[in-house]
């Protein structure tokens, strides 16, 4: 399976993966999380584990089970780690621990390397075996509710290492802390190459005209993605360039304000036939792929963001992306080189006009963006890094390792 990425991923990444796979031949690599479907973690595990298995490593994936109360508690823990004020009582922490303990009967935790994803199964480390145990934190923990973070840290410190997505999420801990950014799969339905006919079919079906330049933002309808700001920027541009705006996404179902934001957006654009609000059902990956390919300018004008992988998705399609300078977006967009970082509605409008007026500039930036994603944000880089962390933990104390 890894051979499918030849000609796409950097050669050195593929070579290192194969060399590490030879070192880890027939050894076991276990991943544990709390859901088999839904969410970015499950999505990437589904793509990644078969590749690791095909390399001769015994990759497994276990999922912990929990009752409704458990998931209510872990949702609160998740929110608290992201900075939402929440209080986790002693009884709640106890239930969190007990559910994990009760899972032991159903789980096989015996492996040479164990990667525990996010806080739901974090207490499993209390029952760890001899292998290398790594905690993988996918959440933005740069500004957590301190008592919640402190409680979880007691578990974290029992691992051999922890992996964060962004350097500024890391905190002072007594264990090794690695930084591994999220990734996209260039062969998935959301990112694979599409023919012109496939793109046209989607645009026709979604009712988006292609006779004028398309400005696109793909995101949930929540205030942090600033859809109203995007529309205001589009209106400023419209005075100079005849263009179409597409806002594609789904309402934020876990956000009580989601419906209100969508209503606001609809009301704000009711009289403009060139604004297309597309509510896409789950698994609309091919439609999103086609929209990104048909767009002339892609926006991710977030006011607050986790990593913002939609930026890498659009860059992979050769698009110059204009993004808010928040969260992980500045790690993807190098301002002025492969896209633009903006801080205001006016700045967004200006950069859109700049790209619409200079197709050569848009093309050059788009090409650089695709290359930047190829080197830094593909699934093969993530596999390379996971195996490298495992190898580094088996060769502690060395900062230069021969493989």
């Amino acid at each position, binding site marked *: 399976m890894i051979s499918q990425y030849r000609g796409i991923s950097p050669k*050195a990444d593929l070579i290192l993966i194969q060399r590490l796979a030879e070192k880890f031949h027939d050894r076991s690599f276990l991943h544990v999380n709390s859901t088999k479907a839904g969410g970015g973690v499950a999505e990437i595990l589904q793509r990644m584990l078969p590749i690791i298995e095909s390399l001769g490593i015994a990759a497994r994936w276990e999922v912990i089970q929990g009752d409704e109360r458990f998931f209510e508690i872990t949702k609160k823990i998740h929110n608290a780690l992201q900075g939402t004020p929440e209080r986790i009582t002693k009884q709640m922490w106890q239930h969190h621990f007990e559910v994990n303990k009760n899972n032991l009967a159903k789980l096989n935790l015996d492996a040479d390397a164990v990667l525990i994803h996010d806080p739901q199964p974090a207490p499993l480390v209390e029952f760890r075996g001899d292998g290398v145990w790594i905690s993988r934190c996918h959440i933005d923990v740069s500004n957590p509710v301190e008592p919640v973070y402190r409680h979880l840290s007691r578990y974290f410190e029992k691992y051999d290492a922890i992996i964060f997505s962004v350097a500024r999420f890391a905190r002072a801990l007594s264990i090794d802390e*690695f930084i591994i950014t999220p990734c996209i799969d260039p062969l998935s339905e959301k990112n694979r190459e599409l023919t012109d006919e496939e793109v046209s079919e989607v645009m026709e079906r979604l009712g988006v005209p292609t006779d004028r330049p398309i400005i696109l933002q793909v995101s949930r309808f929540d205030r942090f993605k600033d859809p109203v700001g995007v529309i205001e920027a589009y209106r400023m541009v419209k005075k100079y360039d005849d263009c179409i705006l597409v806002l594609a996404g789904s309402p934020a179902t876990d956000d009580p304000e989601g419906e209100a934001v969508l209503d606001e957006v609809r009301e704000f654009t009711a009289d403009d036939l060139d604004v297309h609000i597309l509510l896409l059902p789950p698994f609309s990956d091919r439609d999103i792929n086609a929209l990104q390919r048909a767009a002339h300018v892609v926006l991710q004008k977030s006011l607050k963001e986790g990593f913002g992988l939609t930026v890498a998705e659009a860059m992979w399609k050769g698009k110059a992306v204009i993004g808010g300078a928040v969260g992980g977006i500045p790690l993807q967009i190098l301002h002025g080189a492969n896209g633009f970082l903006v801080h205001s509605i006016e700045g967004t409008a200006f950069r859109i006009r700049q790209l619409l007026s200079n197709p050569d500039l848009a093309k050059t930036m788009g090409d650089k963006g695709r290359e930047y994603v190829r080197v830094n944000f593909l699934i093969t880089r993530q596999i390379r890094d996971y195996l490298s962390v495992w190898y580094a933990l088996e060769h502690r104390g060395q*900062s230069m390792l021969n493989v």
Partner: protein
Amino acid sequence: MNTQTVQSFDFRACISVLKSTGKKARNLRELRDIISVVSEDCLFHHTYQYFLKGHVLEYTSDFAHWAGESLEERALAERLANIDPYDLGSIDAVRRALVKVIDDYLLHFPEPREALAGDEFYFNETVSLVFPVGVRVKNLAEFLAAIKYVDAASIYYHFFEARMRLGSGKDDFSSWMDETLGKTELALKVRSIDPFMHSLEDIRRHVADAVEKVVRKEMEVFTP
């Protein structure tokens, strides 16, 4: 390097995985204090490995980058950017140079601004994995084909990382050209490429150009 025959050059590559030290600086004083105590691996990453990241080369280290972009202390950024780790030769010397520049600056501007929340300087280090990439060349013509083909990770290992590894300010390419092929003039030409002023792709191009000139000259049996 030369594993099979005396003359062969085995290309290797170096890939680094990022580690956090858990330390961060909110202002210049904190930056200075942490620079004076962090690990050599950490300083190595923020100075020597700056060239791995494919930045537009406005700065030459993460420290200069942060001073310029996050603190908006342009004069300080320029002074920090002028510290050449390859010229200084050791990480300890780099540490002393960084601290001296910051101390001098603080003497004249004792109250520089704080970075915005989330824009602090995060001290990282790396674990580097070195491995052969399966490309072995025996002469300059093969080298020319290979240098255009290998990943940037190989250029980094042989041109940048080698300077610290060999401890002589020399790179693997020019050492092989000189010591194995006896091409001293070409070796000097390659060695004169300033690592401080070029991206990895620029280095690739400059090395390839220099080698191509020699290969062309050597294959011409008749000069009109």
